[in-house]
């Protein structure tokens, strides 16, 4: 083990006048369990890094100041340690120290220190530093670290453990052995130097080089367009001008692929889109709004940071779901952390600022049980990604005080290099604040977090393909959030809004100030004084200030006469507000640094100058979509085992390990929780909350996603996802005439015509079904080029594309929450009705998945029938005729009824003969018929529990819809499905519940 500690980043200066640097090391007290150590040991075994790891952990605080040991001990007791359960050690780590003054760690066991890299948010250090200064300590610097003491591991294994499990190179640095740190200050200065890029003379290869080396992610034709623009202007661009264009034109900010020109060819011929999204998804909403006429309840769609719909006349609801995939692949904790932080800022930046009322999250990972050897180089283990992503969402959402109420997790090995992280946020917005308009003359004001080098090139990075080297090259694009800074911003933002202190607000997301100011000032023009932006540390160039994606910043347009009050309000809650520019009616973006112009870009070029490229898209029905079901060996399938394996499959299995780590009760509006039933542990179809605590009006939140169907046909994946999201909402009591939906397309490399074609096909399907169901799309976000490339052991280049993944999120409304229903069975003797038609649709089903079968028909949606079904189901629920209701999705009828039974603590008996299968044909064996009845995943179906008294009324309510009374609720806690040949399934609730709860019951 090396004895020399290197702290490469904090520039060590040998200077004898420096104050000493002290280490405060806090360990669990004797007799107290080292929980972190236990968790690491378990993970190390799980990841095959070390068996029976002997490890101890400590929290470390490094303090620089003119203190003696006793003072540091006093500080530690006062602020850092909990003496009832923790022990403290204090010693010097700086040069010339008298180490006898404190405890000196021995060289054995091996010591590993993990520090946040400089510039990475260390909220603990910041908070501790401020508090110690407030208490009157003359402290010069403070950093935190984690310490690990490890015994009996060879050097190589130790380093592997440290890099794979104990730290993440993207944001942290590891120091082995004894620490030796001279100072905690880091020095960085930059000399102002205006940089011009010789673009006018550049040939194609040079243009490509400039884009690549600058990390601009601009295509050749875009570079040529920029060059030509500056040729016209008779000058070369400065670096900041080129960056501004790159940020604005990035896929992440402009959606140039999907909102661009596409020539699409399918079996019906060729169709040319001028703006594909506008002509499909947006067009559906326009059609619905026109049909609704005076009853139109959409307020603002596809224009603000979130979609806005009417809620109760006085208030609107806003909804936005974002993806944060690339950052989460490299640093899952920070990626998820800033993903949820970012989408909450979207809510804050909608209209004049909405109040966030709940969050959602949906994740896609490779199987957490994957072996280490099966992973391609350069990827993190999916189990580690999943744990870190969940922790990232948890720590941000919980700290913000926003309940996380709905979500889902999907597993597929193709997400191994590209996990997907979808974060959603719903907001409550008084109607009068739904629109904003900055005025020429308004100050441009930034509040919240300071600007640092973090997240540089996040917007352009998220538009690029990931490789095994991404972890190394993209470190700057990864950030850690600080939720409390954002909570403080939220607190002052809503007060400032209610006092009318600003005319517009938006968040600093991808592209930082560049995007925020560029968007707000699009129709006006703006001057920005970049040297005035408050910085985390010195040394940033003007371009870095402009494009930094440092978190927790919002940009406001503040009229001159409101500035004093605005600033005073911020100051009163310790929020930093700074004027960094002014909107001016010039039509130009004018960037200045120290009174010198560093860039001037016409807003028109920025927003409309992008070259109109026509992309080719083609859809060919793949082999899967026409194949006959594989019927070999079907007779041998054990149905009881199939059901248990479906319940145990990652997508279906209980997510309580995740759900309980999220605060889903804060804000006190919960009506239908994510877990329901007699023991509060059954899977709810959707969450219902009360946005306004003095009213009984509710909001329902649900989602739908079917990547397996997309492997067969993206059209039916899209319609199935919409149907699933909507029926989940309807199942808990939402009114189908007031359900808004969102789209999130996550696709592979869309420059490939087939890949883009499958996306266009999905979008066309979305358009058709949304109109049929009258469910307007109100917002959306896409993430393209989700592919991971690496070189395999044989030296061949390999690429893994994610399955085409469309997430549909639904936001429903409930007129009277006391009419809501849950999915758990309520009492023995009640009837069980199957609502909806069952088809032979096992293609892409979980029954096929767990039995490794291929082929089959993919589930389809009959739009007009689905619409009628939803309205009539709602009528029945609204008349309180339904005691329990559960939608049929992954695993079909058997899975749905099993879940209802063990959630309610009752048994159920199902007579399969009562389940009518549409288009019964004679070549179907009785065995195959059982499979269809039990496990087909046909859409638009529900199981309803109805009391004997309400039976007739329920049947009447659903007149014209195919329903069948298929069974009864029983008292014996046994789930049984039978037909004329006997029991097809018979299992106890305990067995089934165990199968469902155990796979993800992590400790």
């Amino acid at each position, binding site marked *: 083990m090396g004895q020399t500690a290197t702290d490469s980043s904090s520039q060590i200066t040998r200077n004898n006048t420096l104050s000493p640097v002290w280490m405060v090391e806090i360990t669990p007290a004797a007799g107290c369990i080292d*929980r*972190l150590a*236990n*968790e690491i040991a378990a993970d190390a075994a799980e990841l095959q890094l070390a068996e029976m790891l002997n490890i101890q952990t400590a929290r470390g605080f490094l303090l620089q100041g003119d203190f003696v040991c006793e003072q540091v001990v006093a500080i530690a007791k*006062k*602020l850092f340690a*909990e*003496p*009832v*359960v923790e022990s403290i050690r204090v010693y010097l780590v700086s040069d010339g120290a008298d180490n006898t003054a404190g405890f000196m760690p021995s060289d054995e066991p091996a010591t590993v220190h993990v520090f946040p890299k400089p510039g990475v948010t260390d*909220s*603990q250090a*910041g*908070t*501790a530093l401020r*508090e110690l200064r*407030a*208490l009157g300590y003359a402290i010069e610097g403070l950093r935190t670290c984690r310490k690990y003491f490890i015994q009996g591991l060879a050097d190589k294994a130790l380093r592997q453990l440290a890099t794979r499990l104990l730290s993440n190179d993207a944001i942290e640095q590891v120091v082995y052995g004894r620490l030796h740190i001279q100072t905690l200050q880091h020095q960085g200065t930059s000399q102002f130097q205006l940089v011009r890029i010789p673009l006018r003379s550049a040939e194609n290869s040079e243009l490509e080089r400039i884009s690549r080396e600058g990390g601009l992610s601009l295509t050749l034709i875009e570079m040529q367009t920029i060059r030509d623009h500056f040729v016209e202007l008779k000058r070369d661009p400065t670096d900041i001008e080129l960056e501004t264009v790159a940020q604005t034109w990035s896929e992440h900010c402009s959606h140039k692929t999907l909102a661009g020109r596409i020539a699409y060819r399918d079996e019906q011929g060729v169709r040319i889109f001028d703006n594909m999204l506008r002509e499909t998804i947006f067009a559906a909403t326009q059609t619905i709004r026109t049909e609704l006429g005076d009853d139109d309840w959409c307020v603002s769609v596809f224009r603000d940071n979130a979609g806005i719909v009417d809620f109760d006349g006085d208030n609107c609801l806003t909804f936005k779901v974002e993806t944060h995939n690339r950052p989460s692949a490299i640093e899952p904790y920070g990626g998820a952390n800033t993903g949820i932080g970012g989408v909450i800022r979207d809510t804050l930046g909608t209209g004049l600022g909405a109040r966030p009322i709940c969050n959602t999250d949906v994740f896609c990972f490779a199987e957490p049980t994957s072996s280490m050897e099966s992973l391609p180089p350069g990827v993190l283990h999916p189990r580690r990604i999943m744990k870190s992503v969940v922790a990232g969402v*948890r720590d941000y959402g*919980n*700290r913000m*005080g*926003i309940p996380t109420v709905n979500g889902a997790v999907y597993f597929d090995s193709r997400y191994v290099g590209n996990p997907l992280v979808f974060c959603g946020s719903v907001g409550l917005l008084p109607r009068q604040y739904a629109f904003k308009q900055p005025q020429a003359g308004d100050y441009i004001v930034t509040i919240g977090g300071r600007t640092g080098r973090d997240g540089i090139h996040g917007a352009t990075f998220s538009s690029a393909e990931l490789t095994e080297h991404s972890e190394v090259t993209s470190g700057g694009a990864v950030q850690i959030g*600080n*939720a*409390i800074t954002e*909570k*403080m911003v939220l*607190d002052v933002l809503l007060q400032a809004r209610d006092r009318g202190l600003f005319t517009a607000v938006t968040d600093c997301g991808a592209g930082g100030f560049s995007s925020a100011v560029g968007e707000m000032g699009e129709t006006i023009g703006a001057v920005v004084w970049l040297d005035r932006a408050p910085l985390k540390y010195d040394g940033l160039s003007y371009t870095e200030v402009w494009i930094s994606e440092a978190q927790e910043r919002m940009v406001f347009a503040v009229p001159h006469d409101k500035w004093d009050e605005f600033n005073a309000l911020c100051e*009163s*809650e*310790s929020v930093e507000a700074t004027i960094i520019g002014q909107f001016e009616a010039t039509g130009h973006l004018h960037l200045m640094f120290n009174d010198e112009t560093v860039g001037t870009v016409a807003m028109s070029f920025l927003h409309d100058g992008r070259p109109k490229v026509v992309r080719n898209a083609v859809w060919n029905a793949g082999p899967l979509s026409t194949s006959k079901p594989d019927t070999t060996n079907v007779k041998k399938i054990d149905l009881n085992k199939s059901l248990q394996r479906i319940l145990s499959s990652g997508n279906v299995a209980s997510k309580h390990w995740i*759900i*309980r*780590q*999220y*605060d889903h*009760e*804060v*804000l*006190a509006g*919960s*009506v*239908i*929780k994510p*877990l*329901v*039933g*007699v023991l*509060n542990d059954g899977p709810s179809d959707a969450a219902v909350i*009360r946005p306004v*605590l*003095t009213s009984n009006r509710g909001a329902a939140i649900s989602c739908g996603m079917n990547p397996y169907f997309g492997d067969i046909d993206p059209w039916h994946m899209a319609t199935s996802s919409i149907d699933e999201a909507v029926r989940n909402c309807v199942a808990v009591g939402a009114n189908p005439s007031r359900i808004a939906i969102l789209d999130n397309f996550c696709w592979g490399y869309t420059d490939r015509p087939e890949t883009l074609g499958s996306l266009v096909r999905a979008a066309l399907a979305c358009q058709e079904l949304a109109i049929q169901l009258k469910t307007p799309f109100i917002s959306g976000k896409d993430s393209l080029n989700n592919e991971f490339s690496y070189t395999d052991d044989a030296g061949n280049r390999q690429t893994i594309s994610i399955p085409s993944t469309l997430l549909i999120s639904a936001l429903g409304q409930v007129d009277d*929450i*006391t009419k*809501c229903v*849950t999915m*758990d069975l309520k009492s023995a003797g009640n009837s069980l009705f199957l609502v909806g038609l069952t088809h032979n649709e096992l293609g892409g089903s979980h029954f096929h998945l767990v039995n490794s079968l291929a082929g089959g028909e993919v589930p389809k949606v009959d739009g007009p029938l689905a619409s009628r079904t939803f309205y009539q189901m709602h009528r029945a629920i609204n008349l309180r005729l339904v005691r329990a209701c559960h939608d049929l999705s992954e695993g079909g009828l058997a899975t749905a009824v099993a879940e209802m039974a063990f959630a*309610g603590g009752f048994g159920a008996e199902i007579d399969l003969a009562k389940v009518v299968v549409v288009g019964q044909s004679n070549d179907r064996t009785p065995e195959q018929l059982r499979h269809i009845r039990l496990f087909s995943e046909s859409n638009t179906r529900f199981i309803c529990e109805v009391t004997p008294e309400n039976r007739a009324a329920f049947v009447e309510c659903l007149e014209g819809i195919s329903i069948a009374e298929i069974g009864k609720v029983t008292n014996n806690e046994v789930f049984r499905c039978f037909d004329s040949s006997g029991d097809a399934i018979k299992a106890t609730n305990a067995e089934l519940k165990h199968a469902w709860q155990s796979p993800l019951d992590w*400790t």
Partner: protein
Amino acid sequence: MQSKVKVLVLRSPGTNCDAETALAFQQAGATTEFVHINRLLESPQLIDEYQIMCFPGGFSYGDDIGAGRILASQVGHFLFQTVSSFRDAGKLVLGICNGFQVLIKTGLLVPPDESGFPVTLTWNDSGRYTCRWVTLRSANNNCVFLRDIDLLYLPVAHAEGRFVTRDEKALARLIDGKCVALRYVNPDGSNGTVPFPANPNGSDNNIAGICDSTGHVFGLMPHPERHMHPTQHPRWTREGLAETADGFKLFQNAVAHFA
């Protein structure tokens, strides 16, 4: 009619249960005002206008370093006398979740002895944040907030809620001093052995809430403000809508104390 009982709901960076806590007090008949910790540090005498002071839940200062640690440091260093005098004037102090952590770490609830603080709230046995509903039983002591309350059904939502005493002696002193106010019990109301998840964090002696010797200062980990409406009960769709929700009585007791 405007109530005479005024409640100071303290806000700090990261407080996030302030709105629903204020609403709970209002529904119990009080008037409430939010006061930011910065205002109270500037003008401690502001507190004199109020009868009840509430430290709501949340993550004050991000719970950086430890839950409630920074706010406790500020209150302990700059406002200890102010809050002590408030209590000595017969007024009430309530700390919920993060507020309980703050009260414990200032020593306002359980004063330090010759060896320092005898109790703390630390990481759950599970090592994780946990959100779930628990059954609680009042210890029938002199805690004003729990008067005439036997069982309560409330949610907990915390990572650092395990109540730990330094040793058996410290625990005995709390019990003898009638400071243990609220305990986790099994769903059927029975006590004795209360395993996880009924005791959601592994607290010593199943302690969920503590009051000071006067019964006027009370802190608890569960959230009474999250059970003020019958539809907040996790099983209302099975068991029907209750007439009142469990948290209500606690706030009503506080307000009624000044009637």
